[in-house]
Each structure stands twice: as structure tokens, then as C-alpha cells.
């Protein structure tokens, strides 16, 4: 059973009707097959229309869609010989960030990704993709591993943000994120980050100080969630749509602002309607980035990364 978003209601109705007819056409009547084909065409047109002009708030919903591929899916689809590595060697293991060694299309690399989970139990296991300091310190550990063995670092960003909790604060959430950013900027290996869903604030950028930052077409990346922004600036959580619009958090706006390097298109009706296709396309973008960055030496990689971030903020949306 597909999970439909509120703005997908007309699509849901059409697809429901198609499903019903298919059920009836088990007898093999020709006129029903024709009707199914006609409705399918209509549904596709509707999907295309809807998805080519998604509002910023609708993109937030798509980016958070429960059936959208998550980091664990990308690891399964793109990484061979994956060896998961656990723990920060200081306090604990945070399953909100998956990490390990693996082989991406032949290249040995270090992989990190925030994982939200896909059902109630795994969501709890992964803390809904909201890392605690241990997760960021594990990330630091794996970044250092990448540096030591000169392996590229490939990250998948998908988090509502770092976890706001008493323990997280006590164990230095801010310091853990700051140190991730610092380390990420120092690395002398290629760093490639892909925002696959939600890039939530400091918790996201901790894994995204990369030589190349890729975003999926309907993913978002923002300093604050539209809900948080609405409740602070509009003093009302109901102004989500206005806040999403104002924050310019879509991949398209971020590319114009020079904050990201590349957008990977999603299949018709977004990543959750074409999971394998989406993950393969992300793989292609990562491979291309790896090939380009692989030619640069360590000093150049570090300088390129620094310069890229230093150049941000020179231009607005005009």
C-alpha cells in the first residue's frame, strides 16, 4: 500500500481506480485493458504536472516521504563488501549514523550516512535519523580512517537535525558537530556528499563539508526546518508553507546560490516511485565526482574545499 501525500490525492484516486479495474480484468476483457491504459496515461500526465511544479513545502513532504530510499538502501544498492564500523571509542554507538568501509564501483572508500529507519522499530533503533554526539564522533573517527588510508569519503545526508536532548547536550553535541566540520575541511582525500532527503541544519552540514555536494531533485537542505522557522518568525506553526518558501531550501534554489554543485534528477513521481533508478543515478553522480576528484592531490583537495566554502555568499538570488 503506497503512502500518498496530501497533494497527491487526485493521483491516488486515479491509481486506485486503475488497481480496481486491473482486478476486474483478470477475466481478460479487452475494453477494460484499454480503459486501464487510458487511465494510466492520465495518471502519468498528472504525476508529471504535479511533480514539475512542486512548491517548497511539497518538496519538504517528498523529501521526508517514508518510502523514499534511505542511507541503508543506498549502502545496499551501491556499496559492495560493506564492513559496518561502530562506536566512537569514547562513549557509545549511535545508529543514527551508519558508517563503514566498502567498495563503490571498484573504489575502496569510507561511507557515512544518516539513517532514519523504515518502520517503528528501526526508527527507534536509528533514533529517527537524529544523531547524538556519539554519532558525530564516530563520523570523525571514520574520517580519520579515510585520511590515514587515503580513501575517498562518501556521505549520504538525511536528517531532520542533530538530536535535541539532555544527554546530547551534556556530552557536547555542539562540540561534536563543530569538530566534524573542522575535520571535514582538513581532509586530504576526496569528500563527496549527497543530500538524499532532508538536510537539516548543523546536523546535516557536519557530514557535508565536501568537495562536491550533490542533491537529489526533490531533496531539501536548510538552516532550520520550516516548522521551526514558522514558530519563531511567524509565531505560528501553521505558516510552514510560507516559511518553506522563504527559506529557499530546494535543490534548485541552492544551486543558484552556489551552495551545492549538482542536482540529480528523480524519476517520474519522485524517488519513492523509482527507488532503484534513483539510487543508480546517485551512484553515477558519485562515480563522476570520484573520477574528477581522484586526479587531484591531497593539498589541492583541501584547498579546493576551503575555497569553495569561502566563495559562498557572494551572490544572492537577485
Amino acid at each position, binding site marked *: 500500500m503506497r503512502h500518498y501525500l496530501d497533494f497527491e490525492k487526485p493521483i491516488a484516486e486515479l491509481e486506485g481506480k486503475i488497481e480496481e479495474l486491473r482486478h476486474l480484468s483478470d477475466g481478460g476483457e479487452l475494453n477494460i485493458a484499454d480503459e486501464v491504459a487510458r487511465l494510466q496515461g492520465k495518471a502519468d500526465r498528472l504525476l508529471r504536472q504535479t511533480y514539475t511544479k512542486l512548491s517548497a513545502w511539497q518538496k519538504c513532504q517528498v523529501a521526508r516521504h517514508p518510502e523514499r530510499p534511505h542511507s541503508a538502501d543506498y549502502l545496499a544498492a551501491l556499496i559492495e563488501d560493506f564492513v559496518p564500523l561502530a562506536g566512537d571509542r569514547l562513549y557509545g554507538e549511535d545508529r543514527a549514523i551508519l558508517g563503514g568501509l566498502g567498495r563503490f564501483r571498484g573504489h575502496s572508500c569510507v561511507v557515512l550516512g544518516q539513517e532514519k529507519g523504515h518502520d517503528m522499530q528501526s526508527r527507534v533503533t536509528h533514533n529517527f535519523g537524529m544523531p547524538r554526539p556519539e554519532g558525530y564522533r564516530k563520523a570523525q573517527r571514520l574520517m580519520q580512517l579515510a585520511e590515514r588510508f587515503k580513501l575517498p569519503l562518501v556521505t549520504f545526508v538525511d536528517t531532520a537535525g542533530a538530536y535535541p536532548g539532555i544527554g546530547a547536550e551534556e556530552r557536547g553535541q555542539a562540540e561534536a*558537530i563543530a569538530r566534524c566540520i573542522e575535520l571535514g575541511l582538513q581532509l586530504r582525500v576526496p569528500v563527496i556528499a549527497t543530500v538524499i532527503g532532508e538536510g537539516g541544519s548543523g546536523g546535516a552540514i557536519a557530514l557535508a563539508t565536501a568537495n562536491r555536494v550533490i542533491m537529489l531533485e526533490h531533496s531539501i537542505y536548510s538552516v532550520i526546518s520550516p516548522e521551526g522557522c514558522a514558530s519563531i518568525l511567524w509565531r505560528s506553526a501553521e505558516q510552514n508553507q510560507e516559511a518553506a518558501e522563504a527559506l529557499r531550501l530546494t535543490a534548485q534554489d541552492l544551486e543558484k546560490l552556489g551552495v551545492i554543485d549538482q542536482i540529480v534528477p528523480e524519476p517520474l513521481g519522485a524517488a519513492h516511485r523509482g527507488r532503484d533508478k534513483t539510487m543508480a543515478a546517485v551512484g553515477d553522480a558519485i562515480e563522476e565526482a570520484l573520477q574528477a576528484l581522484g586526479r587531484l592531490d591531497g593539498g589541492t583537495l583541501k584547498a579546493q574545499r576551503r575555497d569553495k566554502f569561502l566563495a559562498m555568499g557572494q551572490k544572492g538570488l537577485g
Partner: protein
Amino acid sequence: MNWITNYVRPKIRALVSRTDIPDNLWEKCPACGQMIFHRELEASLRVCPSCGHHMRIGAKRRLELLFDEGDYSLIELPETIADPLRFRDRERYSERLRRSRSATGRQDALLVAHGTIGGRKAVVAAFDFSFMGGSMGIAVGEGLLAAAKLAIAQEAALIAVPASGGARMQEGILSLMQMPRSTVAVEMVKDKGLPYIVLLTDPTTGGVTASFAMLGDIHIAEPGAVIGFAGARVIEETIRETLPEGFQRAEYLLDHGMVDMVVERKDLPETLGRILRLLGERRPEAEVVPLRPSAGDEAGEAKARQEATPRLVGEPAGEAKGEAGEAARASDKPAAAKTKTPAKDEPERDPAE
């Protein structure tokens, strides 16, 4: 707490004197409620004489307080793009900016100044909380980068003094990008072997804490300052529990290992000066004539110099790198220059710069 003196009396006093004393001559301590006469409050550096509560102070006052004799020079910060997203909530960001600028007479939330602290060269980047909650946008990021460059040009220490609610939402993703950008500023200073010290003041939260403010060589916090990543309200709403007493206060962070010390405002210049001297003047003041090395023997020369160099008791062995660097630099100079130890104030750092 004496509730009569601290609570009741000021209320009575306020009642009695409402008509003949202008409001701004008296200020109420937000912690204990004591009414404090403005002159007394200024003399105590805006620290409540009755409960010790450290009230917020502006960036200008902060600079006066930190630099030797209150003497410093402000630098002009680079002009940056205003309102890059053309952001509008209930009000235009450009309008909010204009209002903050006219109310404070400042361009943005950061002031950068240079001078000496405890006799050592220092660049201070101080936030002004009164300018849009000290929030960090492009202008603040550029200001921190300018401060870092100035520190490097002057071979001075960099001292950051955040007082900030975090990122400036109205600049969207570009405010988030100030986290890596300000971290680059810190890295530039660290790469040159210069001290980077953070003085955490009330409040230091959000993206500011999760970037340059938690990356100091040394972290000093003012008493009672709120320092944290997530806001207390967000945490309460998420976990649906009341927060422990003193949560996210400077003393709490000290107990949890996030800051090196909590220092009262009046003691800050002395503490900073001592640290800067310890990091910058590593040898005792003494006239020492090192052994003359045998001609042409560079390694022997370096060794001889090291042996001849007076050491402080307990000086860590890790200093040897700096010593070797010093020797290497000396060996490039004419022979006559080798007979004296460097002057007290000469910065002793890696000559590779």
C-alpha cells in the same frame, strides 16, 4: 537569599521613587530582582553587586573591558550582500536589518578590534547580542574571516567572544554555510601556530556553538552564561521533561568538560593576559650565551643550542619541535646573531611561515 533586602526593598524603593527618578537610572537585576543604580552597575562591569549575576554587555563595552587600558582600534569589516534571499516573514528582512542598524549604529552583529591584552598582541571578534540576537549571517562570517586574517598579519592571538542565538534564519542556507566558513577562519589561525581562544558569553547557542565557538585552544566562559546547541524549549518539547537545574549554564558545561574555566568578568583581562603570555613567551627572561657549535655541524649546533637553552621546570617535551625550529631559524642568520637568546617579546613560532 535575603528576601527582604533583595526582593521587597527594591519594590518599595521603586514605588517611592517612581516619579522623581528616571527609569534608566535604575536597573533591575534579572536574577535576584535587586534594583541597582546605573553608576554602581557600570562600576561593577554590569555584574549584580548583590547576587553576582553577569548581565549582558555590548560589544563596545566588551572591548574596553578586555584590552589593556581599554585601548583598542576597530577595523572596518568588508561590506557584504544584504538580504541575499529577499527574505520576508511577517516583515521584510531588509526592513529588520535597517531598523537594527539605525538602533545600534552598527552594520551588523560583530565588531573586530586589535590591541594588546596583558601586553600581548590580540585581535578580538566580539558579538553584539543587541543586533538581531547576535545572529550569524554572511556579515558575521566575513567579519570572523577578517579577524583571522588580521591576527595572522599581526602575529596576534585571536579571541572570539560570541553572544549569539545562532544562525541568522533570514539568510537561510547561507547562514548555515557560515559554520564551515567561520571554521576555516579558525583553521587559518591555528595553521599559523597562533592561539585561538573563545570567551563564551550569554548566550552562545545553535550554529555558533556548533562551529567556531567550540573549536578554541582554550574555552573560557562567563558565570551563568547559557551555552548549548539546541534551545531549552526545543529540548523540553522533544523529550517532554523538565530540564535539570542549571542546564546549559557555564558551570554545568564546566562540570561536563566543555569549557576550561568559568571566570568572573572582572578577572577576564588578567586571565586572558596570563594565558597569552604563557602561550607566547615560553622562556624565562634571562641572558644566556649558548655554546658555540663546531663549524659546519648543523645538527650539533641545534643540539648545543637546545642544551644551552634554559628550561622551565616541567616544560613539556613536546616543546622540542619549537626549539628545533628556533635553532633552524637561528642557523640561517650570521654567526654573531647566535650568541643571544631572542628578546622576550619576540614571537617564537614555527619559522616556516
